[in-house]
Structure formats: structure tokens, C-alpha cells
């Protein structure tokens, strides 16, 4: 049962951390719970569909359909996070000032929620599809009893959810003064990490050159599969031994979103004058 729960936990963790950040980013926006839940449900539904059509996806494009698919949905999430980061810079200040007055936050809040709904759905979709396939596999082989499967699954799910909740509670303890800056940096690093993952899939499919792999190797110090490595991977895209192109994607996307966010902010300030 422990082996089953560990695998489920690993799959759930990444999605849970994304939801934790998104939940913190939508702090003060009414009805966000419904939207986040909706995103998670959409993601789960999508996982089941993806898992069922994995055979077709895998055969697509000469056996690299899965990599293309993963890179595309990661790319979509990056665009959504970039959009949200810029949106938060232009509208977020007003929201943070009126965080406690519901009326002020409603305006524009819906737009942010619909963007983040996509991010949550994508995060759940990616990890969910693998989980569904894994559970399907062990249920078919019959090496694992049903009790073990359900028990292990529930345990892993609870562990992952607890990690996401812990992150969320931790973020909420940040003083309001710094809160939006911290969230904004987290959103940018989350997006950069996803871009780096997309690059890794494209290298695996031989669509991008690796540009020296690995560029460095920290696997003796903090391997990807260590608890700290796994959490940092989900949060900021940590990779113990990245290919050069992953680092390139990471840095480029982080700088691009940071610049875009600065631009959005300065435009709002000059518009107010």
C-alpha cells in the first residue's frame, strides 16, 4: 500500500502546490473556491479522457505525440500565468488595497479567476492522466488488492493535498505589504519552471537541441526524487541536472514575464496621473 500511495503522492504533489499558489493569488476574490474547484474537476475529467486516449496520443506524430501534447499544455499554462502576472500588476494593487471590501474586488476578479481556472485544470490534467493510467495498470494486473489500491490512493491524495494546504497557509501568513510581491515572484518562477519542463519534453522528442546536458549536476546534493527536490520542482521548477536549453527557457521566460509585469505596472501608474 505504501508503494502505491508514494506514487500517487508524487503525482498529486505538483498539482497541489500549483493550486496552493493559485489559491493564495486569488485571496480576497469572492467565489474563488467555486472556480478553483471547477478547475480541478475539469482537470480530473480531462485526465480520464487523456488516459483513455493515451494510446492514440502516443502513436501520433511518429511516437512523440505525448511530448508534443505535454509541451503544448505546459505552454498554455505559461501563457496563462504570464497573463495573470501582468493582470495582477495592473489591477492587483487596487485589489490589495480593497482586499477586505468585497465590492471593490469583484470587478476584474472574474477575469483573473477564469485565467487561473485554466492553470489549475492544466496542472491537474497533466498529473491526473498519469495517475489514472497507473491505477488502471495495477487494477488490471491484479497484483494489488482493491483495498490496497483505494487505501494507497487515498493516503497519497491526502498527503499531496496536505502539502498544498500547508503551502497555502504559509503564504497567507506573509504580511499583506509583501504578500502580492511574493505571490508575483512565485507565479513567475512557476511559469518559468513549466517552460523549462516543456523544453525538456521537446528535447526528449528530439525537436530541440539539448545544448549541453546536463549543464550542471546537483544530484549528489539534492536529487529530483528527494523530498526537498520534489517540492522545489513543483514550486519553482528545480531540476538537479538540467539541459542547457531548459535553463535558457527558464531564464528567458522569467525575464520576459518580469519585464511584462513591470511594463503593465508602469502603464497603470502613468494612466492614474
Amino acid at each position: 500500500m505504501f508503494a502505491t500511495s508514494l506514487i500517487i503522492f508524487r503525482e498529486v504533489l505538483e498539482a497541489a502546490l500549483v493550486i496552493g499558489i493559485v489559491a493564495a493569488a486569488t485571496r480576497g476574490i469572492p467565489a474563488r473556491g467555486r472556480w478553483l474547484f471547477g478547475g480541478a474537476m475539469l482537470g480530473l475529467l480531462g485526465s480520464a479522457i487523456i488516459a483513455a486516449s493515451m494510446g492514440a496520443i502516443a502513436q501520433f506524430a511518429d511516437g512523440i505525440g505525448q511530448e508534443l501534447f505535454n509541451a503544448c499544455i505546459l505552454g498554455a499554462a505559461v501563457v496563462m500565468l504570464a497573463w495573470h502576472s501582468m493582470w495582477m500588476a495592473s489591477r492587483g494593487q487596487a485589489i490589495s488595497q480593497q482586499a477586505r471590501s468585497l465590492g471593490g474586488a469583484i470587478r476584474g476578479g472574474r477575469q483573473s479567476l477564469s485565467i487561473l481556472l485554466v492553470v489549475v485544470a492544466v496542472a491537474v490534467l497533466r498529473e491526473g492522466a498519469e495517475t489514472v493510467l497507473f491505477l488502471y495498470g495495477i487494477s488490471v494486473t491484479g497484483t494489488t488488492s482493491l483495498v490496497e489500491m483505494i487505501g494507497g490512493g487515498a493516503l497519497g491524495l491526502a498527503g499531496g493535498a496536505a502539502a498544498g494546504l500547508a503551502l497555502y497557509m504559509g503564504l497567507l501568513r506573509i504580511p499583506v505589504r509583501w504578500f502580492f510581491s511574493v505571490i508575483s515572484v512565485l507565479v513567475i518562477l512557476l511559469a518559468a519552471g513549466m517552460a523549462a519542463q516543456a523544453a525538456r519534453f521537446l528535447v526528449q522528442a528530439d525537436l530541440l537541441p539539448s545544448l549541453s546536458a546536463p549543464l550542471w549536476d546537483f544530484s549528489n546534493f539534492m536529487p529530483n526524487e528527494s523530498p526537498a527536490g520534489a517540492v522545489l520542482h513543483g514550486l519553482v521548477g528545480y531540476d538537479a541536472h538540467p539541459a542547457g536549453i531548459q535553463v535558457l527557457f527558464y531564464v528567458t521566460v522569467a525575464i520576459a514575464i518580469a519585464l511584462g509585469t513591470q511594463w503593465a505596472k508602469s502603464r497603470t501608474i502613468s494612466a492614474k496621473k
Partner: protein
Amino acid sequence: MQKIFALLLISASMTAFAADIEIKLVIENHRFQPETVNVPTGKKVKLVIENRDSTPEEFESHPLNREKVIPGKSTGTVYIGPLAAGTYPFVGEFNEKTAKGFIVAK
């Protein structure tokens, strides 16, 4: 921007032609065959993984930074390398107890 994209496309198509070594790997009864795969250093290698089981498997290697789901009764492709000399373990994540192997680059 367009120039960068064109460059990426060209380099991508070049690397696609550069992969000349192809190695077959079979998954059967949740085991890899062969379990030890020898590859030359400094060359890109195309791993063609055929899953003969009816259940899906995930080819995963942390040292190689690769992960790919291979559905039951199907074949998947994973490009690896160019590698430095060394031993790189991989597993089938869905059946980690039995599905294990090594890529040895020398």
C-alpha cells in the same frame, strides 16, 4: 523573434537528422529486455521502447531526465544523449519492483 524561431527550426531539423543510432527495448511481464543497454558516448541515441504488456508503463530515468508513458501494446520513442561515460539507471515507474535497467555509456 522570427529569426530566432527560424534558427530553432533549423537546429531542430538538423538534430533530427543527426540521430543515427537506434536501440530497441522491450517491456514484457513488467521487465525490460535487455536490462543493460550499451550506448556510445557523445552520440544521440533513439530508444524505441515496445511495451508488449497489456498495461501501461512509464519509462523513467532521473539521471537521464526522461519520463514517458508507454501505453499497453504500443511503442514509444525516447531520445537520449549525447551522454558522458557512465551508468544511468532507468525504471518502469508503474512496476518499479521488476522493471529496472541500466544504460551504460562507454
